[in-house]
């Protein structure tokens, strides 16, 4: 495994300063400049696809198809989306017409926040670096990227290529582990974008609090699947297992557990066995279509979960920590208090949880933190609505898992324990900009309308005329209040 060269700690403040100076030089104001940089991100990846594919093979033993589909495709989509839309996003907007204020030309414009920090996780180090980076560039910011230290080949490649393709003063890569990240967090940023887990997220949010820095938290979640017994179990099994075993289970949007009515658990397991055999005709360990866990520590962690589960392993279950190999595993008859539910597994282990009813399924989902996604397999609209309307999550997807991250126009983001803020698309652009508002009040405004505002104040009807009419008073009922007999000033 290649060694990742960490950025010297005392270089880090220089990098921060250079990015800041570059931002204040004003060169990001030009939309043409931003578009060129965005396009360059695309070519950084395109020109070097094979090197990225190789690097991710080294770091994660990830099959080429998965890298293309999960790590690269999403970045290209973001490049295109930002390039095509940045003019519209950065245009000056007029506030909706309002009689009292229109003469002042009220306007809004999206302005860059300044110098932003991106801390990316190990599972999709290309997508989760370059997609947010593109949004940051579109917003006119300077950026410092901290790629994950657990994927040394990919992160070294990123550090090599960024200076070759992008402006050297505005965009920087800082590599390293905990000490380097700590140093970064001591500095003052205009926004910190973090993708990872809740524990580290809290540490980062606390560091950001000291500088009053706004943050985006893209965290994980134990994403549930609720299965309608009437749905096509073959389709469901295939999509669910695909989502769970992709990138060897290391995807934040992956389904972690399936809630199925207990009379139908056998049928589901049978369907999954068939799908499993079709995915890995020569067994998973010999398959070219299965990635590996990022490092031995995580592999050991997942192995322990498998060893401790009180459910019954029906598929997989074996592990070879030294090879970072965890077999794609399905466990049935998992109870609500199983060790599998302590944390996000973030590995290729799917729990099947038999329940008595859809209500029980919903209650269990709501007993935990709000996940990134809730999945329902059903063609019955009312079944879908029942689950979605009674749960909370970043995404609510029917008959599909994971893939929605790639859909242009759908922002990625969590709620509650799965985080806040967004990446991809216009919503990501808005994370990295602030609305600067402006007005221009002609001198004559005071003569015709606003003159009454100056002391000495005289009781005036002018003010009440500026008030909009109120919404109608709700009819008498539990929460309405009878108008007081003493009416206040300002009544026309």
């Amino acid at each position: 495994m290649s060694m990742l060269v960490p950025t010297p700690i005392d270089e880090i403040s220089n990098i921060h300063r250079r990015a800041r100076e570059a931002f204040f030089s004003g060169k990001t104001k030009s939309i043409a400049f931003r578009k060129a940089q965005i396009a360059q991100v695309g070519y950084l990846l395109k020109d070097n696809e094979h090197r990225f594919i190789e690097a991710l093979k080294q770091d994660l033993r990830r099959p080429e198809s998965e890298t293309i589909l999960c790590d690269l495709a999403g970045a290209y989509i973001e490049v295109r989306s930002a390039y095509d839309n940045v003019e519209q996003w950065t245009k000056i907007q007029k506030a909706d017409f309002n009689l009292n204020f229109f003469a002042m030309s009220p306007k809004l414009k999206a302005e860059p926040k300044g110098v932003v920090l991106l801390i990316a996780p190990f599972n999709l180090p290309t997508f989760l670096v370059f997609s947010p980076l593109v949004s940051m560039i579109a917003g006119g910011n300077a950026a410092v990227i901290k790629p994950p230290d657990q994927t040394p080949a990919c992160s070294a490649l990123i550090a090599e290529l960024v200076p070759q393709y992008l402006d050297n003063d505005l965009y920087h890569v800082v590599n390293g582990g905990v000490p380097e990240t700590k140093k970064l967090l001591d500095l003052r940023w205009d926004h910190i974008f973090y993708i990872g887990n809740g524990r580290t997220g809290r540490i980062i949010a606390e560091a950001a609090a000291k500088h009053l820095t706004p943050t985006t938290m893209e965290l994980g979640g134990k994403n549930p699947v609720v299965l309608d017994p009437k749905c096509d179990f073959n389709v469901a099994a295939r999509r669910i297992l695909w989502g769970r075993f992709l990138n060897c289970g290391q995807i934040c949007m992956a389904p972690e557990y399936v809630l199925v009515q207990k009379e139908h658990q056998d049928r589901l397991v049978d369907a999954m066995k068939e799908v499993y055999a079709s995915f890995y005709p020569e067994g998973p360990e010999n398959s070219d279509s299965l990635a590996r866990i990022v490092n031995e520590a995580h592999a050991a962690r997942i192995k322990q979960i498998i060893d401790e589960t009180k459910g019954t392993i029906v598929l997989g279950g074996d592990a070879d920590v030294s090879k970072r190999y965890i077999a794609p595993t399905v466990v049935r008859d998992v109870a609500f208090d199983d060790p599998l539910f302590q944390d996000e597994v973030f590995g290729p282990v799917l729990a099947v949880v038999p329940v008595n009813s859809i209500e029980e399924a919903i209650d269990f989902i709501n007993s935990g933190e709000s996940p990134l996604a809730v999945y329902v397999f059903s063609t019955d609209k009312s079944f879908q609505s029942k689950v979605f309307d009674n749960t909370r999550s970043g995404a609510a997807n029917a008959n599909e898992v994971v893939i929605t991250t790639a859909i242009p126009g759908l922002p990625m983001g969590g709620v509650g324990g799965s985080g806040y803020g967004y990446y991809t698309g216009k919503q990501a652009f808005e994370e990295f900009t602030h609305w600067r508002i402006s007005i221009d009040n002609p001198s004559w405004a005071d003569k015709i309308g606003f003159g009454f505002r100056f002391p000495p104040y005289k009781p005036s009807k002018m003010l009440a005329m500026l008030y909009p009419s109120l919404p109608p008073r709700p009819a008498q009922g539990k929460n309405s209040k009878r108008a007081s007999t003493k009416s206040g000033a300002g009544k026309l």
Partner: protein
Amino acid sequence: MSLTYTPLDEIPNIHATARRAFLSGKTKSIVFRKRQIAQVAWMVKDNEQRFMEAMKADLGRPYQETEFFDFGIVYGESRMAYDNIEKWTKEQAPDFNPNWFLMKPRLKPEPKGVVLVIAPFNYPLFLLLVPLISAIAGGNAAVLKPPENTPVFSALLAELLPEYLDKELFHVVNGAVAETTKLLELPWDHIMYTGNGRVGRIVAEAAAKHLTPLTLELGGKNPVIVDPKVDLEMAARRIFWGRTSNAGQICLAPEYVLVPEESQAALVSAFRNFYHSFFPEGAKKSDSFGRIVTEAHAARIKNLIEQTRGTIEFGGDVDIAEKYVSPTVVSNVRADDPLMEIFGPVLAIVPVKDIDEAIAFINSRDVPLAIYVFSFDKALQKKVVDNTQSGAIMMNETLVTAGAPGLPVGGKGPGGYGYYTSKYGFDQFVHMRVSVNNPAWVDKLALWFRFPPYTVAGGKKIRSLETPLPPRPTDSESSISNTWVVLLATAVAAASSVAVLRAMERV
């Protein structure tokens, strides 16, 4: 006047009640939300006199200032939310995309849950009820924490809110540091804090423990640039009004004025004229001038006035017992003067050489909430806009954008982050929930290649669906930066000079 504080052990119960009420699902109904929004407005309208008297008691605030800044803005917000909530909460579809439309991709704003709104003493009606309206529009439950140093107002709100709004969803918690600390220990789905940076940090640190998203609306230190060619009378009147409203206790208020040295005297003279025209019998006797919120704050301002190294042109009188600070103008103020942080009716004038020095001065300090430019010169206006940062930038006006529907109020840097009012306020309190619905047959037609075992044919199919890149930038467009080219050139030059030297040695 003493305010009844909410008992500390009541506070977690209030939070639990609000949460239970939210989870009951009653806020899902848009009709329900609209009724509650209307009720906020009527709570104010039915009790205007009581609210005006409360602000007079707490802040010495003239009735008209309460009407203009508090009532007008709350009514405007209620109208806007009531009229637009269907549009804001509608499910949306992203732009058509041939690869994905079959999956019916959608986005819908969903409530975050139970939100906490903490407001400061200067405009507590506005700063509590406007976020409350946004939170209600988003379908949330809310707990309001009014300021303890406006006891008459805060008691009044605690009395009226339960009479008008749903008692389980919406609550008032009154108190000071202990009660606020207790509130901050609980897990909220969003916290909106308006106040100062010191407490803002404390709120942010508490929020971090629960990964709670935040809106922070913090201080101002707002500069004014006066172009000597502008209508000085118009400028002086609007600036002086912005500085003396609410006795200077407005986060958007102009704090210091940058003007060329030669014009300082004329500006001072104009301010002096408006002092007399605004307060013909002097500010202390005027019904049109407020008071400082507490004696402690009055003493603080007195201290700053005594320490200034500038020239007090007029005013400078403080009566701590009366909480009175006279409208004061100080000229010849330099960058390091204690007066540069005030929150009182004291206007500092900082003489500068020219517009460039004014801009440099602004940029050397924290990003302000607002920058005010008094000039008719479009080029000068543009120069300021293009070379500074701020939450708002206003030409020939102060303050009023807070009341303009559709223009959010929000800071940057030490001024905070996030927004309130209009759709931007609504957006703070919702999260976009995305959804798709994938019909079964799509795998056969379009996405079959994603399943293992991966094949060459599948790989080709993935490639064929790839998004085409924008055109590659030309060398001049891209910043395959000068640094890189220079390095390369240097390396080549170095290599060739070594070669030359070697060649020379052999000769």
